[in-house]
């Protein structure tokens, strides 16, 4: 699947995800990961066009009519947005918003929907769900709002949940609890989870498989353990260093490691490998776009991937 908006914004992203599986989609801002999620949902802005196929149980979502997609959204595939304050209607009580999500696909009267909403709010571990349901979004904390979002996303029992940076807007202390909750809920419902994040640590918590995206394409994909203990693509290595850099025991004296340079803006992707300008393993070959090379359950798009480190475990 690719996304165009004039220049190509997302190129040839291809992956599959099985029921109950958790896949992490990792990348910096501007890597195209949110666009991928929006494209799957069919919610791209009008100027953007998605080409390719997105199969959900044999049905191509991109080829489906808008009416069919409305039927599937929420009931088969749903999305958790990054910023709960924007994604919740500030003038509607939280309980009503959850009821809304329920009534989008089920014929429930107000009373039934309200009760079901309270039950859902309880499942996302909100204390005193009845009282919470009568509150407005601005009266709740960030963590509570994110739980409400999860309740809305899971309201109609979707098969796939796309979580777009669900913890980015939260305090670190709250992040873990929310992630654990997401993990739990997804396991209970048996749905597939696509966790989109820029934080490797977050992905490592709950994902079975991880894909790294850079400048609109997938640069590496594989089982989470392999990716995080012995990444092959230089970008993934660099990400690992930057996000897991602080060792627990020894104090760090130097500045935090960063990846020098910036993600090229859309439309200004260099020809060849998009990461070449920032890559320390660059060779002449990199001027040609490396294809995604598969090796069992692992794939990497690099002419000179980092060799596998054996005997290293991540934990």
């Amino acid at each position, binding site marked *: 699947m690719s996304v165009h908006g004039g220049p190509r914004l997302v190129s040839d992203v291809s992956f599959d995800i099985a029921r109950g599986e958790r896949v992490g989609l990792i990348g910096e801002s501007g890597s195209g990961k949110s666009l991928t999620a929006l494209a799957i949902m069919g919610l791209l802005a009008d100027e953007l066009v998605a080409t390719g196929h997105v199969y959900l149980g044999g049905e191509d979502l991109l080829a489906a009519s808008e009416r069919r997609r409305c039927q599937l*959204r*929420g009931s088969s595939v749903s999305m958790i947005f990054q910023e709960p304050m924007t*994604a*919740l209607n500030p*003038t509607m009580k939280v309980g009503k918003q959850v009821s809304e999500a329920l009534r989008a696909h089920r014929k429930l009267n107000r009373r039934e929907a309200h009760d079901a909403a309270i039950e859902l709010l309880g499942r996302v571990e909100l204390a005193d769900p009845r009282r919470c349901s009568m509150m407005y979004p*601005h009266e*709740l904390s960030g963590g509570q709002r994110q739980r409400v979002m999860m309740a809305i996303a899971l*309201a109609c029992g979707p098969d796939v949940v796309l979580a777009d940076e669900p913890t980015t807007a939260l305090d670190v202390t709250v992040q873990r609890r929310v992630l654990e909750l997401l993990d739990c809920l997804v396991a209970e419902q048996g749905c597939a989870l696509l966790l989109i994040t820029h934080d490797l640590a977050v992905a490592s918590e709950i994902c079975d498989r991880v894909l790294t995206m850079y400048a609109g394409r997938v640069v590496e994909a594989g089982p989470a353990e392999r990716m995080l203990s012995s990444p092959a693509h230089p970008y993934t290595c660099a990400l690992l260093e930057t996000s897991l850099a602080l060792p627990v025991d020894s104090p760090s004296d130097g500045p935090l490691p960063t990846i020098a340079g910036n993600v090229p803006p859309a439309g200004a992707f260099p020809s060849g490998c998009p990461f070449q300008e920032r890559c320390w393993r660059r060779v002449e070959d990199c001027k040609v776009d490396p294809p995604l090379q598969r090796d069992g359950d692992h794939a990497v798009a690099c002419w000179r991937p980092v060799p596998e480190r054996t005997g290293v475990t991540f934990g």
Partner: protein
Amino acid sequence: MTALGVGLARPGAPLSWRRWARSPSALAGTALVGLVVVVAVVSLAWTPYPPLAIGPSHSLEGPSWAHILGTDQYGRDVLSRLMAGSRTSLYAGVVPVLAASAIGVPAGLLAAARGGIGDQIVMRLSDVLYAFPALLAAIALSAALGASTGTAMLAIGTAFVPVFVRVTRSNALVVLGSGYVLAARAYGRRPLQILRRHVLPNIATTVIAQMSLLCSLAILAEAGLDYLGLGTTPPTPSWGNMVQAAQDYLSQDPLLTVWPGLAIIVSVLGFTLLGDGIAELRNTHLGRCA
């Protein structure tokens, strides 16, 4: 705050009636409009004297116990005519606005939700109406249909349609671009449902505030058209034609122009303050965000 633009909706906070009580504009506006409404309703059943009853023997009298506001050039009681005139003004103030909103709001929603060609068509049609000089239209209508309250209302209503189209469309666009509408689409809401459940409630306050402001403008416009002889014709009392008649007697009885003028001021002020008050209800910020 201009009468023609309330400003974009910032659907930041839910309505609170307590805020109404704390807003001086809302309270003053409600009081004034209430006064006019009460007078109008009362005048249906009772006025001190019949508004059309002539009494040539006591014309142009000043205020007295018999006639609280005096009499006009035909000896008719000014207060009674003022009260009867309030019905005309209220009628001509409210009906065109309601009619214009009945056309303008759906058109604005259509333009905002559809976008593309539909949007262009609606906006261009609305531009044509907007650009057309309203007074000219009123004169033409008067010539074609004869001067009456109805003609004035038609002219005013037509002039107001584009205002509603614009206000509705711009506010609806703000709501439609918001994160929660995207989220609503993400759980499968279809466009019509989104309009009903998310857009309308969030733009309602702004549109209603706009309606109130336009009511004040309508009353003023109607009085003006009556004054010019294009609207309500004498002997039916209306504040506009009362001013028009009274100006011939300015040297003999200056107060005669003042009473209808004051009445116009009170009602225009009332509706304007009311509109401001309603707009204020919505525009308060959220306060402490968690």
